[in-house]
């Protein structure tokens, strides 16, 4: 069949080189659509940064709701926040900060091509801290359940501001629940990365999965850094101050 083609053909905008006779050896982990390991690594990390921006907006909606309701009843929120355990909240904060440290050391280990034992060691420590965080969170949730502070038909509040307290705890469970979900996913990702590391997958040219998982983990940590004072420390001050 005849080809439909315009008789006017403009000059090309690019040079289209002929394929090389021999294909140079490429890294086993270089995907077909990238031209170099460097390009692949930069694309992956940029992708994770963009994804984390979407996560900021995702949590942002809940922070907005928190802002509106706290503004409507500051004393109510303060009273409700008082019933959360500052001891365990602080402990959890420290646990997460330590986990971010071990994560960063794990990324560094992969980047400097250390032995698989070192990399998996740091990743394993991160996982252990993560599980520790979730364990403490689970205990806190149980404690709230026992005290009838879980919003819904069984909610009961002895203080002065029952409605704001229920709103506070709705937001508490929504925000920390969403955060915990991200932690669980993060632990899953860490496990996969650890398995890959044990198989000697990474070297100084290819450690992007560890780096990208690290970015995600640090983000989840930072979300907690915002949640902790907003939920646990309302009206708080050091003794004697």
């Amino acid at each position, binding site marked *: 069949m005849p*080809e439909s083609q315009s008789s006017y053909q403009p000059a090309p905008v690019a040079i289209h080189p002929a394929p090389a006779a021999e294909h140079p050896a490429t890294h086993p982990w270089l995907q077909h659509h990238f*031209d170099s390991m460097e390009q692949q690594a930069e694309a992956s990390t940029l992708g994770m940064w*963009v994804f984390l921006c979407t996560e900021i907006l995702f949590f942002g909606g809940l922070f907005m709701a928190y802002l509106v309701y706290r503004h409507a009843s500051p004393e109510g929120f303060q009273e409700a926040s008082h019933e959360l355990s500052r001891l365990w909240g602080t402990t959890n904060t420290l646990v997460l900060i330590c986990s971010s440290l071990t994560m960063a050391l794990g990324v560094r280990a992969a980047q400097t091509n250390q032995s698989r034992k070192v990399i998996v060691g740091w990743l394993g420590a991160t996982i252990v801290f993560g599980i520790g965080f979730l364990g403490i969170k689970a205990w806190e949730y149980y404690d709230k359940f026992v005290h009838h502070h879980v919003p819904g038909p069984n909610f009961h509040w002895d203080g002065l501001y029952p409605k704001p307290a229920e709103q506070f705890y709705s937001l508490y469970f929504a925000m920390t629940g969403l955060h915990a979900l991200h932690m669980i996913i993060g632990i899953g990702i860490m496990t996969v990365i650890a398995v890959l590391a044990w198989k000697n997958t990474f070297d100084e040219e290819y450690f992007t999965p560890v780096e990208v998982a690290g970015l995600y983990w640090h983000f989840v940590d930072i979300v907690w850094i915002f949640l902790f004072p907003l939920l646990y420390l309302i009206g708080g001050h050091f003794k004697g101050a």
Partner: protein
Amino acid sequence: MDTIATPTVNYLNNGHGLKSWLLTKDHKRIALLYLFSITAFFFLGGFFALMIRLELLTPASDLVQPDTYNKLFTMHGIVMVFFFLIPSIPAVLGNFLVPIMVGAKDLAFPRINLLSWYIYVLGGLFTLVAAVTGGVDTGWTFYAPYSTSASNSHVITAGVGVFITGFSSILTGLNFIVTVHRMRAPGLTWFRLPLFVWSMYATSLIMILGTPVIAITVALVAVERGLHLGIFDPALGGDPVLFQHLFWFYSHPAVYIMILPAMGVVSELVQAGTRKNIFGYAFVAFSSLAIAIIGFLVWGHHLFVSGQSTYAGLVFSILSFFVAIPSAVKVFNWTATLYKGSISWDTPMLYAYGFIGLFTIGGLTGLFLATLGMDIHVHDTYFIIAHFHYVMVGGAIMGYLGGMHYWWPKITGRMYPESIARFAALIIFVGFNLTFGPQFIVGYLGMPRRYAMYAPEFQIWNVLSTAGATILGVGYLIPMVYFIWSVFRAPLAGSNPWGARGLEWEIPSPPPTENFVVTPVVTEGTHQYAPSREVGIA
């Protein structure tokens, strides 16, 4: 330049069988997967629209019960907004063209691209289940407390569908952003990019920043409805206006997700159709970014009568005027491009004209809505419906159809039949104006939207509108028929049937799976028909 011969192996026949399509990593095949799905949803949404318009032939609610009517307009909105308009150009034309236009072999994350399609289908299934098991009747805007506490329909199921599909949008936007940043071919600087890529980039910014907010909002509606927590329902201690703020924070930028890609298409069509550089390239490129950014700041213009403070009203009104300016700049630039061009009368150009005319009307009526004293009267009437259909159907869908015609030979390797296509474009244009023109009039008269029954004096305008809708429906069916026909029977298309400039016209039609055997080296602006000073203004 030598004509590139039509190859025997291309992305369409490289691998046969369902598995090679359903597990593909090729952005071009994924674009076609999206094409089939969004077309199916378009006709579903169109069917709902047909039912609405048939009911509105008479003032009484006599074709369907009011409850059914409420479900019809809700499903029409949900399907058209979330499952057709938002994905359409980005997921079909964007997926197909962005890698080729930047000189890459695929998007940055091919598997995430495929995942985004599966997520879209999953979300669509939830919504179909909601539709089939009884429907949703909240309006696509899900206002609380009706949606959280009073509606007896499948709100949560539909909400889950929207929540899931949002992630498809987010992943698509993420993919485009990384691709444009990191995978441009050597020599392809930002200011040598086609304007279609600029608009896809700006659209992607909105997709990634706005969509998470609707996700959390819909999740909160589901939580409140399921667990009776007081977030939006004042009877439970919540704030219904908070819902509106959260909802419109996404849903206003969402309309720019729908229009920016179409504007990008029109820029390409106008350049190819005039064989001339776009007038004011940098201004058009930056306008896309300006629309994306300012578009995030105007959501409160949907809340002018909600009881929000008058000062908030002032702020949102003035910002809404600002957001109109970059669109106006684009319209002027397209018009100026026509001056001393070599202008074709082919179908893509006809759709470009249709876009320029109808988008201008729709956008100008937006100024009415930004005007505080004016919006009070026309808010929630058919004036609003006419406004947004002018921009979304007269604008976005015309842009989509124009792009489909323009790139059809590249996508399929076949040429569509030109005469019938021009005829269909005319039918669509006439049918569209007859459908939505009268709605401005009946809206100012006071006919509220979402009314199954209406005051008898509004009937004449409704009858005209339904007549137009019938013509419009026929107009949409015609391209369906000849596009399908063309795949089997039409003449083969060469690599560059339009004599256009651009990387996509320098590879075969249809392209090979890897697009470029070797990454090209770009030597000048891919939009230019004449050499120019590089970069910067003009």
